């Protein structure tokens, strides 16, 4: 987003220096902290956030301190993330990780397609989201049906499968955790449901 001045020759730069040098302006009576201090380039600069067509409130995705953030976006893409000055937690500040949130959202390493690795394959292949979802649902059903245990031999109810496990949740929303626990535990009978709370 930064605007680089164009490259110029020596004569042009000397002329500009004479024009922009603060001292003559000060001698003419301009305030050294105001008009005399102003550089030509600063007259052309505009705040980056002015380009935003949307700003929303967010919470830092890293540690649990819960710093509030403001995400600025233009044309559906983030252009800046900063601390929310209203927050009693962070009062506008962010740490080096929180300040990297914009870099996280726009990382060149970010993935935007579904990848699939066939057993024994040496590389990924791209698949559609729909295909992946259907295939996963099929695998879940097959593994669940093969491993589900309804009761112990003495009749004690189990209603569970040890055959499918889930890891993760601490980076996710409360509502996402709720759906995971509800579907995996309450719907499918999975008991190996764990997140980073013990890691």
């Amino acid at each position, binding site marked *: 987003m930064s605007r680089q001045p164009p490259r110029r020759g020596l004569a042009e730069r000397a002329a500009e220096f004479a024009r922009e040098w603060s001292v003559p302006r000060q001698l003419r009576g301009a305030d050294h902290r105001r008009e005399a201090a102003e550089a030509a380039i600063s007259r052309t600069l505009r705040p980056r956030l002015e380009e935003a067509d949307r700003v929303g409130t967010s919470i830092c995705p890293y540690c649990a301190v819960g710093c509030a953030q403001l995400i600025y976006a233009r044309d559906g893409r983030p252009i800046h993330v900063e601390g929310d000055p209203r927050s009693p937690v962070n009062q506008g500040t962010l740490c080096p990780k929180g300040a990297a949130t914009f870099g996280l959202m726009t990382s060149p*390493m970010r993935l935007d397609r579904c990848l699939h690795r066939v057993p024994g394959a040496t590389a990924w292949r791209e698949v559609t989201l729909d295909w992946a979802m259907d295939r996963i649902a099929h695998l879940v059903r097959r593994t669940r049906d093969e491993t589900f245990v309804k009761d112990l031999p003495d009749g004690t109810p189990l209603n569970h499968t040890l055959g499918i496990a889930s890891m993760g949740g601490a*980076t996710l929303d409360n509502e996402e955790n709720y759906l995971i626990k509800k579907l995996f535990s309450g719907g499918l009978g999975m008991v190996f449901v764990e997140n980073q709370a013990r890691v």
Partner: protein
Amino acid sequence: MPQWDLANSDCVLVMGSNMAENHPIAFRFVLQAKARGATIIHADPRFTRTSAMADIYAPIRAGTDVAFLGGIIRHVLEHDLWFREWAIPYTNIATILGEDYRDAEDGDGLFSGWQEESRKYSPESWQYEGVTMPSALAESYVDTEGFCEATKRLHEGPPPRDPTLQHPRCVYQVMKRHFARYTPEMVERVTGCPREVFLKVCEALARNSGRERTTAICYAVGWNHHSTGVQIIRSGAILQALLGNVGRPGGGMLALRGHTSIQGSTDIPTLYDMLPGYLPQPHAFKPHSTLESYLDAETSPTGWWRNFPKYAVSLLRAWYGEAAAPENGWGFDWVPRIVGDHSQLPLTVAMRNRIIRGLFVMGQNPVVGSSNSLLVQRGLADLDWMVVRDFAETDTASFWRDGHLVRSGGMRPEDIRTEVFLMPAALSGEKAGSFTNTHRLLQWHDKVVPPPGDSRSEHWFVYHLGRRLKDLYAASEREEDRAIRALTWEYPVDDEGEPDAEAILQEINGYTWPDRTLLPDFEALKEDGSTACGCWIYSGVFPKPGENRSRARRPDGPEGPGTHLGWGFAWPSNRRTLNNRASADPEGRPWSERKRLVWWDEAKQEWASPDQIDFPKDKRPDYEPDWSRKPAGMDAISGRQPFIMIPDGVAGLFVPSGLKDGPLPAHYEPVESPVANPLYGQSISPAAKRWEHADNPVHGTGDPRWPHVLTTFRLTEHHSGGTPTRLVPTTAELQPEGFAEIPTELARALGIRSTDWVVISTPRGAIETRALVTDRLRPWRLDGRMVHQIALPWHFGWVGYATGDVANVLTAVVGDPNTGMHENKALTCALRPGRLRRAGGAGVAREAR
């Protein structure tokens, strides 16, 4: 306690945490307290930026925290420095124990109740005289016949007490005896902390506690990650309760948690042993076979948990909707039963043993973050299928191509039969939802931009997976498929198919059944099926349509009370300081003007506070239960008992039930330690969780092949398993490569200089990394020999701009008896200069043993 309340502390002890570097924004409040004259103390094995900002730095050997804190407890008791007027009424210090109790002092490190065959404690002998106590959380039934029947005695009267503290079996006398040998000399011998530094810490804590002053303790996983983790935290809590630093401004224990919503994912647990709101997951070997027996076993006779059935039935109604009926126990029969420990550590072992065949990994990176990474990677190779959902390719997702098995384990990707899906996930800012941050604060985040390409939220993924599975099972008549068919799964979706997160939060908040009127809070919940609620402690977060209180953004102004009740929503019922009744004396008056938070307003006949009261609002301080009527629930809690979640209303210095490794903290050495325990013949925690496996060898105490202490730590610039920072250019540039901190004396002895390659090894494996030679780590003289300590950041892996070998290759699957948390903060290792020999086909690189 709220983080900002630290600014009101007169003393802050940071221990088990490098707060300045790992929670820097929260540390601002510690520095604000310091600017107002507070004393800041840091106790830690490494001298860090937190130590640099502290008034007192107390160095301790990794894994000796109970000895250090136990020493402070002894000092406070011995010199009568505790807050008597607070602790006698508000804790169980005066309560009298039964005659069967034997302390660890009498058992050379073993408490009474130890059963050698099952390697477990039975807590029957830890009970109060004539009264059996249920635990407040999910552990009340402890494999003991008649246990829950025995707790019914709580209706008949309070546990016996001796407020003069003279009774030889009162908790005060028991504790004095238990901690008698934790002298400054013993503290120095065990922890290595010089006694004069230790005494300065004791004096600072005592001086800054009492009516006029409060001390706070901040801790993080530097306390949790030990085989004694729970007892370390208990030691801190005992100390705070003795000093009266609970429920008061600037006092308390602040758990500095590691992930943004790790609190939320504990409250709404993606954890094996709990249902939402700290209800126990039913257990096949406890009396949980029917709803009736489950409620009977788990409902506390007295205290707030008497309401347990309302919360359990409302959850079942939320999950199973119309299909939930009294005949099927409101659907309780479909809830899966656990049969043992299914937590992280045994989960990885179960993958390796091919019990688990399919795995979901959502926003986690277990190849880097889980103990014994080689065991984990072998386990992943044993799976039939794995679904990884993250914002980029993680080390876990690429284990079959770039992991240790392929790089040095003699395996080829062709040999690994795991089918792997890698699906791009949306980040906060690209989806709407709430996080629960440290201090129980729910904060909503908006969807500001759409996620790129095929990236989707987990709302989307789980919702659509569930929808597909409900279709696949729609025609099933099998009893075992009733749950998935009955599961309520109707959420409004937008044009992209994204479910409405606010609709899910409304289900979590609760509504009436079947007309779905939102509930104002959990006091409206019923046990007759007329209410549905996904997580009772969150009830009140969405009390009316359009009123999402987690989205509230109204901070107090500079003139406001500073409780910020209009910013987010803190569970329960927006209470910012838990147990805040304790900020007033038994008569309901603030302990001092300076530490005023809650008081009884006689004119209005109710409690008053700038906070929400964590106590029945109109319960008079002089209310006493009428024991002739066998009171239940809150009727059995007097007006001067602030701890309403505990069955006897007071803080438990001594814990009669709920703990698996003893009713009082005792120092045990880490499972892998260079020295034997100087305090007891029982060297390590007898109840520590162990998983025997050929891939998980653990060595005994003082093994000369592994002479150095190893501890792990985190960096400001990296986050946990590293994915969200190693793949981000700025943070990767700031900390570009893995390294190990090595003390100067050891480096000199081995001829190691900074930036040299070194190999660190344990019985589980070996890694190579760069040396950072530093005085931040000091050598310890233990029982006449020098012991060195090496420290490793554990974020690194092979993916991203910032890479390094995986520290968790070295760690063991060994856990705390209560939580199953690993012991990665204290183990032992070998060190040599040089690089690893990675011979193809020779098995994963291991140093000679």
